[in-house]
């Protein structure tokens, strides 16, 4: 049992789940109805209007209503949104035991101690039917979930099933509603709209509870005889099926589980029991120490149950619903029902792999908890809680996906948890001794290693490493080095999710997530009020996780937020861009598309990828107060600026980021004194006098403005200010301005006008304006003030400022990349700043150098000290050396003893020797390095005597037959023989033939190259290629007989070309022998060539003969050329012209040794035709013909074999030998 929520209260008598929200109603013996949020664990509301215990309570399926019934005989209908009771239904004459809404009609059924069941219409607020028949308290009554039936249980020891079909018919004809009301009274006793269908007798004591099966025609009941009975019914009758015995006291409530084939009952014996509904055996019992159970409720949609007892209630689940899964590359492996399945993300294909052992049905919660998969071995570890923790190892056969229903015999073992730590190793936690056993795929222990902390589970942490979990911490333990690589204090970690690159790990606890790196260095911690369920890393290093209710993200710095709300809990398995793949509780793979803009944006900001940030600002719809607040908080007011439409916010952000232009823009729009003032302050700070002036003007702050003009030396405006002050009658301002301007007359005038005549007089006289002074003295008369003696007065004129025009040098505001990119203005100014910055850097570097020199000195001093120390140590070492010899004495004897026994094995046979023994193929001998035998073979088979052209081929074959493996450091390398035709199923230790560097396809490629060179007229190059082919063929090995024929064919083709090209080259050498030239050209046409080459040869011969006036022969070639249907129109035209010219004069100027009517072959050495019937000899290899005189010479064409020698023929395939 997995308890999800518990309350402490008075005795709970009634319970009801809300169908959509995570709410449960609990009605208490004290008369209170409580509304709880079981997910958050908070009391939402309490309803306290009943007098005495409230025994029945029920939520309406869709309306914000619930109904309650209590010992005050009242049925109350409440609206939980309005927090009040809407109305009360009166009619029962005793305690009310249960109340229930109908699933579609506006009805409530209630059971009461007054022996009746009543059905109420809560819309008309009337009782529409009274079901009488029980002759004791009716303990419960409920509607059938689909049919027009009611089941009731009573202390009269019976369960009754009522047919209310008539009632429904009555309500669907609403025309005579009034009539029905009056009729109701007549039906009141022994009414006909609800009749007893079956009376189920069998319990020996009062029945406390009866309920329908959600889909099958079954009823389950529980009674004071401590028994639970199962009843079946059909259209005509109902009968008892079985009895479940086990409760030690009155059974208070019992119901069928809606999703599993089980029955849940509870009792006053303080236990909840779970029964198998098919086998009718007890599965599990949960006991409480002191509390008798009174009521059970099942959630209508999800797998939750609730039970009420003497001191509160519990909300619980019977089984874990998280499917066990494991991720590997593109595939997800998971367990559904009793099958291991694989889901491929790229194709979204779901395959059933193998059946696995079904957990024994006599226990709950024994299904697979975790999976671990090894991709190379295709092996799966399935861990479950069976036997207090055990694992099963299955190997998935590669080919028989989904076939067969046979459960393969898995390798089993006991252990807290088991995970693969390497391709073919898995670690099993042995809790009792707190050590980990490393096992191989045969389930044999390879290694044992004690764990550094008291561990209750292990997780994968990279190859060879384990993440060990204890109550309050996790450590990463290296199994090979046996050292702790990192540890971290955490709350109890439930799941561990590694990022793809294994650099980051997320540790999921019930209510928190810790992100750490691979050494478990803490990065950030998140706390969630809602249970954390699952998570996965996306490609950008953002951790996406689910809680019960939301999909959320967590950035590397710990910033998190909501991506999406969830209806039902899901388990994230993998993230591909915007698609999140999850498993739901039914084991279905679901892709969920999310909008990743927000977190990608934040991530880009965090990573300072401003280019991305900018493009996102430009292209996507990102806004909202939350984003602005985030940006401000993270110190990016300048970015936030671009999201904001509200001018005040814009203004604030602009000021914050020092963007004075934007602030000015906003200030103009807002146009409020306060904003102008703040703009002025900021502008002054930056030194932007223009804006300062503007701001002062807007705020009509004349004093500041005057002073500003003074400072900036703007005397024109200052004098204007004076005039304004005069107009405004601001004497003091006017005086100030005059003072600033150094305008004495003005000052005097002001003083005079203001009535300060003595002051005006003094001013005038001090500054030597005697005429005015005298005039004033006259006005003052006797009151002329006396001037101090001996002081020389001078006119106070402010010094003119250094800079009069334009702005002052502006304060450097750090302008982000955003402004550069988003504003086109002001980019020039920005460049200046950058230059300045560069200059600074240069200096900084200088400083750094100075530092490093100093450091160097210091370290040198340090080194000196080291040297001293080392010397001292060496003295110590000498002493130890003396001690050493006696220690080492003893083992020497043992070594001697061992070595006397040991006899070194005789060296084995090198692979190359094996090759030689097996083969009669020259190439394989050459590869093995046995050149002499290879030569002998070639000589025997092909009559080859001249090996010098084959030298490099032999050596290449030999070199290519071995690879080099550096094994033990500093020891000589191992050379390893390479074999041909490797396949994964080849058995080891059986030597295959050597791998050869030449193969047939290479020759075919070469042939094409040769053709191309011929076409291009590069004859000597072409000849080289063809000869190379001819030389390689003796060392070719092919597999099939068909290929052997191809090889033989190739010899003929190439031979013809070689011969032809040799003749053509010879012809070109012969400049002064036109007859021989013609002959050779003519012979060339008799070599079997490719059609285009043939055409060229014919054209060539034709031209040569035509030029030599051998028109008849030329005509012959022209005819032949035309017979080939040349595609080249030029060729055809020339041929036709030759033909025409020749026909006019059909004769040859010179006699040629060439009779095309008489079939002949060419001699390969002398290039004379050997006509049919004449004697000839052939080359045993390339089968070129020769005149008999050439017998015993090296073949002129292939340059390998001896003409006319005996040979057994080409052997180039093992298939020829078999």
């Amino acid at each position, binding site marked *: 049992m997995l308890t999800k929520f518990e309350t402490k209260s008075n005795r709970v008598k009634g319970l009801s789940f809300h169908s959509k929200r995570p709410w449960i109603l609990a009605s208490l013996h004290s008369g209170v109805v409580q509304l709880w949020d079981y997910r958050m664990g908070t009391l939402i509301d309490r309803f306290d209007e009943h007098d005495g215990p409230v025994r029945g309570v029920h939520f309406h399926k869709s309306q914000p209503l619930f109904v309650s019934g209590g010992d005050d005989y009242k049925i109350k209908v409440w609206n939980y949104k309005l927090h009040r009771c809407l109305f009360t239904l009166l009619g029962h004459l005793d305690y009310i035991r249960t109340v229930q809404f109908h699933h579609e009609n506006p009805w409530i059924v209630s059971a009461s101690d007054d022996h009746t069941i009543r059905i109420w219409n809560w819309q008309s607020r009337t009782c529409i039917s009274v079901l009488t028949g029980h002759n004791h308290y009716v303990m419960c009554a409920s509607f059938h979930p689909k049919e027009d039936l009611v089941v009731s249980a009573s202390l009269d020891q019976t369960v009754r099933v009522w047919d209310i079909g008539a009632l429904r018919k009555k309500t669907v004809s609403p025309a005579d509603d009034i009539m029905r009301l009056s009729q109701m009274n007549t039906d009141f006793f022994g009414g006909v709209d609800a009749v007893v269908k079956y009376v189920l007798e069998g319990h020996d004591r009062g029945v406390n509870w009866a309920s329908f099966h959600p889909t099958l025609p079954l009823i389950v009941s529980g009674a004071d005889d401590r028994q639970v009975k199962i009843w079946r019914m059909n259209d005509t009758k109902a009968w008892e099926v079985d009895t479940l015995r086990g409760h030690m006291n009155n059974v208070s409530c019992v119901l069928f589980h809606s999703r599993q084939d089980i029955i849940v009952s509870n009792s006053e014996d303080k236990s909840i029991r779970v029964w198998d509904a098919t086998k009718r055996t007890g599965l599990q019992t949960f006991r409480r120490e002191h509390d008798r159970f009174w009521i059970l409720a099942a959630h209508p949609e999800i797998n939750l149950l609730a039970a009420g007892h003497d001191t509160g209630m519990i909300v619980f689940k019977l089984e874990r619903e998280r499917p066990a899964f494991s991720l590997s590359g593109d595939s997800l492996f998971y367990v559904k029902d009793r099958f291991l399945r694989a889901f491929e993300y790229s194709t979204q294909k779901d395959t059933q792999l193998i059946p696995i052992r079904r957990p024994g049905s006599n226990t709950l919660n024994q299904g697979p908890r975790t999976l671990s998969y090894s991709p190379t071995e295709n092996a799966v570890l399935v861990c479950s809680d069976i036997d207090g923790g055990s694992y099963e190892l299955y190997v998935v056969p590669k080919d028989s996906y989904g076939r067969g229903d046979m459960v393969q015999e898995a390798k089993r073992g006991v252990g807290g948890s088991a995970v693969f730590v390497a391709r073919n190793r898995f670690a099993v936690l042995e809790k009792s001794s707190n050590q980990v056993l490393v096992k191989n795929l045969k389930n044999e222990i390879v290694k044992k290693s004690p764990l550094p902390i008291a561990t209750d589970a292990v997780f994968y942490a990279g190859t060879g490493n384990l993440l060990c979990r204890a109550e309050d911490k996790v450590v990463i333990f290296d199994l090979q080095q046996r050292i702790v690589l990192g540890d971290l204090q955490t709350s109890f970690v439930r799941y561990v999710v590694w990022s793809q690159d294994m650099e980051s790990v997320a540790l999921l606890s019930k209510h928190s997530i810790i992100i750490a790196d691979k050494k478990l260095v803490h990065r950030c911690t998140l706390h969630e009020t809602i249970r954390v369920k699952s998570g996965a890393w996306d490609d950008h290093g953002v951790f996406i996780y689910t809680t019960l209710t939301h999909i959320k993200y967590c950035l590397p710095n710990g910033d998190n937020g909501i991506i999406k709300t969830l209806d039902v809990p899901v388990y994230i398995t993998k993230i591909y861009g915007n698609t999140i793949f999850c498993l739901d509780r039914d084991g279905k793979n679901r892709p969920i598309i999310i909008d990743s803009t927000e977190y990608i944006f934040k991530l880009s900001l965090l990573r300072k990828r401003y280019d991305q940030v900018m493009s996102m600002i430009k292209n996507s719809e990102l806004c909202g107060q939350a984003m602005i607040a985030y940006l401000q908080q993270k110190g990016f007011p300048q970015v936030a600026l671009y999201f904001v439409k509200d001018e005040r916010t814009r203004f604030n952000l602009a000021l914050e980021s020092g963007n004075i232009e934007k602030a000015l823009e906003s200030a103009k729009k807002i146009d409020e004194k306060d904003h102008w003032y703040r703009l002025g302050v900021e502008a002054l700070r930056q030194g932007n006098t223009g804006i300062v002036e503007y701001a002062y003007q807007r705020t009509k702050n004349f004093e500041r403005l005057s002073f500003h003009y003074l400072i900036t030396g703007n005397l024109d405006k200052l004098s204007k200010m004076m005039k304004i002050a005069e107009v405004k009658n601001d004497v003091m301002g006017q005086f100030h301005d005059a003072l600033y301007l150094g305008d004495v007359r003005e000052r005097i005038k002001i003083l005079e006008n203001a009535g300060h005549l003595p002051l005006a007089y003094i001013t005038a006289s001090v500054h030597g304006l005697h005429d005015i002074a005298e005039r004033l003295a006259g006005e003052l008369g006797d009151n002329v003030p006396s001037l101090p003696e001996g002081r020389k007065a001078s006119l106070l004129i402010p010094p003119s400022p250094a800079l009069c025009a334009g702005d002052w040098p502006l304060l450097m505001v750090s302008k982000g990349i955003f402004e550069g990119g988003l504003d086109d203005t002001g980019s020039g100014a920005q460049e200046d700043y950058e230059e300045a910055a560069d200059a600074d850097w240069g200096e900084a570097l200088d400083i750094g150098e100075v530092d490093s020199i100093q450091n160097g000195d210091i370290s040198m001093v340090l080194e000196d000290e080291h040297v001293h120390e080392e010397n001292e140590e060496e003295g110590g070492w000498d002493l130890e050396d003396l001690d050493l010899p006696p220690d080492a004495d003893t083992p020497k004897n043992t070594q001697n003893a061992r070595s006397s026994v040991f006899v070194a094995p005789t060296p084995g*046979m090198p692979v190359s020797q094996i090759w030689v023994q097996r083969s009669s193929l020259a190439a394989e001998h050459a590869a093995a390095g046995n050149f002499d035998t290879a030569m*002998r073979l070639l000589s025997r088979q092909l009559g080859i005597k001249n090996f010098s052209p084959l030298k490099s081929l032999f050596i290449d074959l030999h070199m*290519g037959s071995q690879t080099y493996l550096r*094994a033990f450091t500093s020891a000589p390398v191992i050379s390893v023989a390479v074999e041909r035709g490797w396949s994964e199923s080849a058995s080891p230790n059986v030597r295959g033939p050597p791998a050869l560097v030449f193969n047939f396809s290479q020759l075919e490629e070469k042939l094409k190259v040769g053709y191309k060179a011929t076409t291009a007229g590069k004859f000597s190059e072409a000849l080289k290629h063809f000869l190379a082919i001819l030389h390689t063929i003796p060392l070719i090995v092919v597999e099939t007989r068909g290929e052997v024929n191809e090889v033989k064919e190739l010899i003929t083709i190439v031979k013809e070309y070689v011969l032809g090209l040799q003749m053509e080259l010879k012809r070109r050498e012969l400049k002064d022998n036109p007859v021989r030239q013609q002959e050779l050209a003519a012979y060339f046409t008799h070599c079997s060539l490719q059609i285009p080459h043939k055409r060229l040869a014919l054209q060539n011969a034709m031209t040569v003969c035509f030029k030599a006036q051998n028109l008849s022969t030329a005509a012959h070639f022209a005819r032949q050329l035309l017979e080939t249907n040349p595609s080249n129109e030029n060729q055809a035209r020339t041929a036709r012209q030759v033909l025409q010219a020749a026909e006019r004069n059909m004769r040859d100027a010179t006699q040629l040794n060439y009779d095309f009517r008489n079939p002949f072959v060419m001699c390969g050495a002398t290039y004379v035709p050997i006509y049919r019937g004449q004697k000839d000899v052939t080359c045993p290899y390339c089968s070129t013909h020769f005149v008999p005189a050439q017998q015993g010479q090296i073949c002129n064409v292939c340059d390998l074999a001896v003409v006319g020698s005996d040979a057994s023929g080409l052997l180039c395939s093992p298939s020829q030998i078999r």
Partner: protein
Amino acid sequence: MAALAGGPDPLFGLRNSFYIGAYQAAINNSEIPNLSPDDVVERDSLVYRSYIALGSYQLVINEIDSSAATPLQAVKLLAWYLSSPENKEMTISSLHEWLEDPAIGNNPVLRLVAGIIFTHEQDYNEALKYTNAGGTMELHALNVQIFLKMHRSDYAEKQLRVMQQIDEDHTLTQLANAWLNLAVGGSKIQEAFLIFQDFSEKYQMTSLILNGKAVCCMHKGEFDEAELLLLEALNKDAKDPETLANLVVCGLHLGKSSSRYLSQLKLSNQDHILVKRASNAEESFDKAVHAFA
């Protein structure tokens, strides 16, 4: 069975780096605090052997003075042997001398060095005389290699079983397993490949590991793949003789010109087995032709 249980091993990383051919890493990470005196000697010998593997023989010869511990002296001897082939008789005679000294003759490092030197001399009987008794994983691994050189994979397999019993997951056991797998061929090639693959996932990629993978690929007939791996290895160490040698072989099979690699190898490492093979082949070809004529 000592390996089945035990405390943390401070030299593990260093040893591991050395075995998989990450010599510079071994040298760089040799500053390990709190070592026991024995561990210090082992650490030093590993570091010096790493220098030897990198070809810095003179540094080793200079730094180890006559008062150093036996293992280090043995390492110095190895450096001597490898640095001056012309004086190898002298080196070998002093090696014999030391081996006969009962006080130090049984030192595993000395025996190991003896095994290595005699293997170089192709005197496998003499090498096995000192190494067959085993005692350290390194000696066992060397035994495997010597048996493979003798084409006795049956003995090599027995030796490997011994290693597997001691510690199946030991780096040397895994490596020796891969060597043996390559030598016996067939389906074992794939296993060898997986072993190298595991190493490349677990530890840093070294040219030794890359070469191992490439050799497996070549044996599987996947020469294109092998070439990629070898070029990657060449990027890591442009002078590694095995990389060059294997590139030559690979090039031959791909029909590409590999003469540059060959001449590079000839220049840098004229004693390499491939170079020797090439010159031997030429000689024996000429001899065969001569005999034939």
